């Protein structure tokens, strides 16, 4: 089973040289830590930076330089700052090649819900609705089940949607799954995880090929 860093590490393998990538709050933020040295990748944060760097050293924090998670960050050489309209022009205009974000629920048709539990909790959609409606590559990073042990990979979402039919791939603590033709297609198992465990934790339709390789995490 993967921990959060493991999920991030696996997702980092999906990042190609020359890509602009938007990382959501939470697990997705960790993906930046696992990009190989020398790979040409730039991270966009939708509050207005391209070329986001690592967190600053203590004492070097700048209140005017944060990411979308409101964390203090640094800017890499070649970075650029811009306003929110330009930022979402990049996103909506499909200039960002990959979006990684968290979710409360993902459905077998690619729907995603991650911003509201009616009557109980409302975080707001932030930039997520723009991101999922626009990005060509959307990877969801999340735990396979919620705290109550219930599957987050469902036949259809029960919570208010963030976007429809947009998620292409899900990476969880248990597996990598692709979404197509109205089903979750099992691609890889997390180290030490059996197909049956994944099956038990997946409420939506799961398609399992004959051979399901185990993830290779360096």
């Amino acid at each position, binding site marked *: 089973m993967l921990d959060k860093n493991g999920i991030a590490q696996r997702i980092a393998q999906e990042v190609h040289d020359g890509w602009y990538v938007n990382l959501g709050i939470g697990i997705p933020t960790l993906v930046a830590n696992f990009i190989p040295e020398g790979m040409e990748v730039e991270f966009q944060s939708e509050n207005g930076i391209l070329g986001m760097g690592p967190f600053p*050293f203590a004492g070097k924090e700048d*209140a005017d330089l944060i990411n979308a998670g409101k964390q*203090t960050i640094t800017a890499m050489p070649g970075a650029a700052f811009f306003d929110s309209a330009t930022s979402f022009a990049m996103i909506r205009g499909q200039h960002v090649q990959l979006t990684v974000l968290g979710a409360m629920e993902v459905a077998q048709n690619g729907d995603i819900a991650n911003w509201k539990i009616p009557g109980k909790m409302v975080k707001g*959609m932030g*930039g997520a609705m*723009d991101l999922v*409606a626009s990005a060509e590559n959307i990877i969801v990073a999340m735990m396979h089940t919620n705290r109550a042990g219930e599957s987050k990979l469902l036949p259809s979402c029960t919570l208010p949607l963030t976007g429809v039919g947009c998620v292409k791939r899900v990476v969880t603590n248990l597996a990598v799954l692709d979404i197509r033709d109205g089903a979750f297609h099992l691609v890889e198992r997390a180290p030490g995880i059996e197909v049956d465990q994944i099956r038990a934790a997946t409420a939506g339709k799961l398609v399992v090929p004959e051979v399901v390789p185990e993830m290779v995490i360096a």
Partner: protein
Amino acid sequence: MAINKVVTNEIEACKGVKNGMTLMLGGFGLCGIPERSIAELVRLNIVDLTCISNNAGVDDFGLGLLLQKRQIRKMISSYVGENDEFERQMLSGELEVDLIPQGSLAERCRAGGAGIPAFYTPAGYGTEVAEGKETREFNGKPHILESALTADFAFVKAWRGDTAGNLIYKATARNFNPMMAMAGKITVAEVEELVPEGELDPNQIHTPGIFVQRIFQGTGYEKRIEQRTVKTEKLSE
């Protein structure tokens, strides 16, 4: 001769703000918020406000201060996030809240300032956000029609400004400020440093002075950090 927009301070700058008005306030989280103007709005105790702002600050800072005093009737935002009082007032129904996608919020403010009454965007299609909105397909992809936002007053915060109202923001403190500056009937800019006209490079202006009606140099900026995160700590979520 450039048009002089300078007012003395936040007291002068906020003159004319009245109960029931619609305000825009720049900033993302606590980054780039018009601290001095917010403090003055709190002091004036103006109520029944509709506030358009990406967030509503935190419980005890930023727009959270106006929420605490129940000065806000309605929020138009994209993210509630880490503001417990905001979430509480919204869930209890004390506060009317219109949550809209962040990109649509930014673009709707820009549209308001740019004389574009409406535009189509894919964001929010198939979700609650699309309810009651026109849907139309372009290039085989469904979009929804979003309308422009404007405000009686827009309050923005910049790093440097000149007497002609030209503004330069710093780093990610820029965020929503430029679009909101465009969309205010009266736009109030507070800056950390106010310089005479001619001192800023005209090639580096982020918000041209035409969008700004009043400008003042604020004092005592707190610039609170919401999520201080540093490298020496082990990277964690």
